[in-house]
């Protein structure tokens, strides 16, 4: 029963909101989360839980697939380093509140030391450890090799390399031109733009959360929830036909999930208005087009005028930075918005123009 509960919980419809809430709690109570006590307790709880998870045949077989090993390492690393970063930030923030300044800025840490041997040896140790780790990894786990390439028969599911599975998961909600081209392009462009948008002079060179709450919240949400979480879903929870399977669920080929999705235009013209779809494509999709444009064009100025946060931000960074930032945030948020619309209304496309290959 517990397993079934986990299966149910891990469905993105439930787990995505859960993860979002967890993310909010984590940042809100980062000092608790970043404490060593919390870490010890978590590990203490996680060890038997993991053991119980591993005892399940289906879970174990998914986890131990050779190509999934790196994702597990990634998970462990991300979990640890997230905790570690927040731990460090919590320590620094406490010090800053006390007026002491960050640890990294203490005189003993600003003292200059010789590169040889301090740095060189540190690096050498890291290299040796890394080499040893890689060798052990290579010996214990064979690199994956499946049957010879056969262009006439596709495995089901056909998955992209794991680091792109976040993008492939987005394909459920977006057309390839958005999920595969526009959004990744914006991720790269947005990342490069970060230093030019973030004008906050504080927090340069040391761990802190309080001094850069908004920047870190935005970045971590993108990184942890919209990237790492989606990869986990894509790797572990998507089976044949990209159908959702819980962690303890057997990948039954015949599993069917009811998924008949409807376009916004169909909802409005047929369901609500009860008349057929207009012939003219633009007229047909006019509601979706207006909505999408409004989302991008109206929200930023309204936000800057109507809300305190928006006003401050606009004042702090100036118009250009503000609009670029808002654009990026809106594009980021389009994914969760699209997810929620899909789950709540079975909405397929807001703008459905397959004739022009332009679906939103």
């Amino acid at each position, binding site marked *: 029963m517990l397993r079934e509960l986990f299966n149910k919980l891990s469905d993105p419809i439930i787990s995505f909101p859960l993860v979002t809430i967890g993310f909010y709690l984590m940042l809100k109570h980062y000092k608790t989360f970043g404490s060593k006590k919390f870490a010890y307790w978590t590990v203490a709880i996680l060890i038997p839980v993991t053991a119980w998870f591993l005892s399940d045949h289906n879970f174990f077989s998914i986890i131990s697939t050779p190509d999934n090993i790196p994702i597990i390492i990634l998970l462990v690393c991300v979990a640890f380093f997230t905790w570690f970063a927040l731990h460090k930030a919590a320590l620094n923030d406490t010090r800053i509140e006390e007026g002491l300044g960050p640890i990294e800025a203490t005189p003993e840490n600003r003292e200059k030391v010789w590169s040889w041997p301090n740095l060189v040896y540190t690096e050498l140790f890291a290299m040796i450890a890394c080499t040893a780790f890689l060798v052990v990894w290579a010996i214990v786990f064979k690199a994956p090799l499946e049957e010879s390439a056969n262009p006439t028969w596709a495995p089901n599911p056909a998955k992209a390399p794991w680091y792109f599975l976040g993008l492939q998961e987005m394909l459920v909600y977006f057309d390839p031109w958005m999920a595969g081209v526009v959004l990744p392009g914006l991720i790269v462009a947005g990342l490069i733009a970060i230093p030019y948008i973030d004008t906050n002079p504080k927090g340069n060179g040391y761990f802190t959360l309080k001094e850069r709450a908004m920047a870190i919240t935005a970045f971590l949400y993108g990184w942890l929830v919209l990237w790492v979480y989606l990869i986990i879903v894509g790797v572990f929870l998507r089976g044949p036909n990209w159908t959702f399977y819980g962690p303890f669920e057997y990948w039954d080929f015949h599993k069917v999930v009811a998924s*008949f999705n409807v376009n916004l235009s169909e909802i409005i013209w*047929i369901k609500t208005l009860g008349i057929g779809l207009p012939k003219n494509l633009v007229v047909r999709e006019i509601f979706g087009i207006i909505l999408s444009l409004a989302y991008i064009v109206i929200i930023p100025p309204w936000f800057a005028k109507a809300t305190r946060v928006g006003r401050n931000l606009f004042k702090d960074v100036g118009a250009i930075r503000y609009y670029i930032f808002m654009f990026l945030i809106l594009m980021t948020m389009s994914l969760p918005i699209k997810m929620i619309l899909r789950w709540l209304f079975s909405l397929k496309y807001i703008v459905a123009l397959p004739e022009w290959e332009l679906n939103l």
Partner: protein
Amino acid sequence: MSENKEPAMAYSMPKLHKIMAILSFIFFVTTVWMFLDDYIKPWKAIQVESLQIKRRHIENDLKAAQKKIDSHKLQALNVSLAKGEEIVASRKKEIEKEEADLKAIRAKLKAQTIKNGIFNGDVSEKNFKYETAMVEENQKLSAKLLAELEVLKAGFEAGKDNLKLLQGQEKAVLTKIADLNKEVIGVQKEIKDTTTKINLLDLAKKQTDLSPIFAIRNLPLIDYLDPTIKIQKIVINNVTDDRYFRQVPKVDFCITCHTFIDQPGYEKEKQPFRTHPKLDLMVGMESKHPMKLTGCTSCHGGEGQRVTDFNSVAHMPDSEKQKEEWIKKYNWTEPHHIPSPMLKLSQTEAGCVKCHSDVQLLKGATVLNEGRMAIEKYGCYACHKIGTWAENRRKPGPSLLKIAGKVDKEWFKSWVWEPRSFNKHSKMPAFFRQSNNSKPEFVRYNMTEVNAIAEYVYDKSKPYVPNEKYRSGNAENGKKIISQVGCLGCHGVDGLEEQSDKVKAYAGPWLTGLGSKVQADWLVSWLKKPSHYQEDTIMPSMRLSDQEANDIATYLLSLRNKTFEALTFTGLDKAARDELLVDYNSAFDTHDSAVAKVAKMSDREKTLDLGKRSIGKYGCYSCHNLEGFDGFEGIGPNLTKEGSKPITQFGFGLQHQVPHERDAWITAHLQRPSRWDEGVDKVFKDLNKMPNFYMSEAEAKKITTVILGQTADVVPLAGLKRANSGEALYNEAMKVAGKYNCMGCHQIDGLRGDILKAYQDDINQGPPRLVNEGHRVQTDWLYHFFGNVQPIRPWLNIRMPSFNLSLEEKNKLIAGFQHGAGQKTFEEPEMEVDWQPGEKEGAQKLWNSYNCVSCHSIGFNKDTPLAPNLHLASKRLRPSWIRKWLSNPQAILPGTVMPSFFGEDGKTPTDPSVFEGNADKQIAALTKFVIELGKK
């Protein structure tokens, strides 16, 4: 200069800029040059030209098509269209109403589709859950799910019903609308139908426009988007290029320039725009060798993957004239570093051999077949291995095992020394008196060798006593018999030159000077029963009467060669003999011990030893049966892969006038093999031993084609012509037929029938042509016939001989004919005649009305028969063949005297009164009638 010089500057800025400008200009020019060099290609110009040619053809087609259209009719249609539009316009309101209905229905339809889609998904999901619960034996859950499922399913069913209802309504409304528009729709369709062809042609013509879009598509840099001018390719997976480490599928770009090679209608264009001349056999979509499957270089050779220019693909001119022309037109040069240049046009058939390796004669490959026949004639295969098709053949020369009983030793020596001095048509080649062995010291050795050979051969010869006595006869009569019974199918004969030259028979020797050669008794007994002298001879018995045999012998003996009779051959030069023996022996020993060894031998031993060695040296045993040479291989090099032999491995000696090409060497070699020794100082034993056949250039060229076809190319199994079991048996049979020269007389399935050329006036007087013979005659009958030949066509002078066939050969022949014609082994011919009511009477009526007995008179009246005895037909012929034959004899044997009673299509009887003029019924009845004749 110095006034505006900056400190710490080696050069002034303006100078640097100037140099920069100059170098950049050079850089720019080279870039542009490279760009143009990459873009401008000769084949592009050719494709543009081909586009114009195509346009011209389309315009002609268009004119023809426009002429075909009845303009009045079109006009009338247009008028009725206008009328129809008026009528429809008057119904505007109705139509609008219906269209509004349609819209409403479609909206509902769409809504229902969505609903059903949701239902479908829900039902499937619920069903899966229910099944899972059932499997897990969770009764409570499954019961609950089942209840839900039932509800969903009911909803889904209702939805589906509603959908069908709506679809029905939609259809009804659509029909109504179409009905309201019918005046317009019908006429529009008719107009469209009449103008389809023109519209399509217009479209095609548009594609040949040299419009701005055409220019843009082929613009440099963006000509990757969707160019119209592009390299066209054929990838042939079943034929490979040998890259030595690997066999790589062939790729041919030839059609890049030969644009219309597979399209009929361009036969009269200049090259490279001409259609392939044999479209029904090659290249054409419907042919046996479609372009996409066979490609071009598989047959023609050359470098299919190259498109740079005319030379890069290794085009080869067929003649000096063409060479001159190409040099002028295309700047043609000899191909370099290309192992297999294109086959010259006249040698193209060499390309067939690559895939059709096992068959004897290949239908349609005239040059190749004639080349193979020449090889058969001269017996090249006896000394050289030439592929699998030439394996296991008879020895081309006569057996010498009983030679002493046939010709005398003196004649033998003079013959061997120079066969042509006795018979200018001799197939026996000349080993001596050639350009490389005519030096006095070589002649002395050669004559010694000939003496020794004769001694050896006669020493081993068994005694032979003829079994007939010559009683003399009428020479004139003999000559007539020779010309009539079919001797000319194998032999040319002095005095019958006119016919002989027409037939060009080659299986047997040209008969000349026999009076100077053989004894009369020998000749008669040979004519009566050839196997008495030589058990394995292919010379058949013509079942000659004593008188006939004596008449023929008289004629043949009257042919004498006085000059040859006068020849005497110098006796054995013992010194030369010993020198030669010492030479042989010193190959593995010192000169002194060789001398000692020879000295120990007796005189006779020496002569016989030299005789045997000389026979081995010249390979006489390859062509003639000789004692002491069992299991010896032919002395010539293996020619199975000669067509791929690198040109550098051909020794051209000092023959600079022979072009350095594979085919030129082979042709030159065949015509005068001794030429390579000319001007070269060689010792006696190293002289080129290939004899001179004195063949004509034409023959040499044909043989060259065959040899060129013997390449090392590995063709994957899928690409080879693999004979099915029937074809394989047929090929075997044709090998036997080739051995006994059946096709010297019979034309078999369209091939050869040499002697028919002497019957051009009336082909029906010649030996019967065999078409699908295995289908025509019953296998048992054929077997019996080979053993006991009985005349079927008594009015013919020419005779089917009685061959000395072995049991195996007989079986091969009958099996080959039978399976080659696709006849099953155990098929019982429908011998039981089972008459339908009234059928027999009808058959009798037809028999009379078609007047069969007027030709098939045997057994019916005393008239001279002009056609075979039908009483024997049931034993001989297959009923299904009789039916086929009756329906249209001309289709099987063009020019036959058998009339076609059922028209060209075999469906229109000349006597329509019987069986309501149903041809099939008439033919069936007649067939039964004929079979019944044999039963009585």
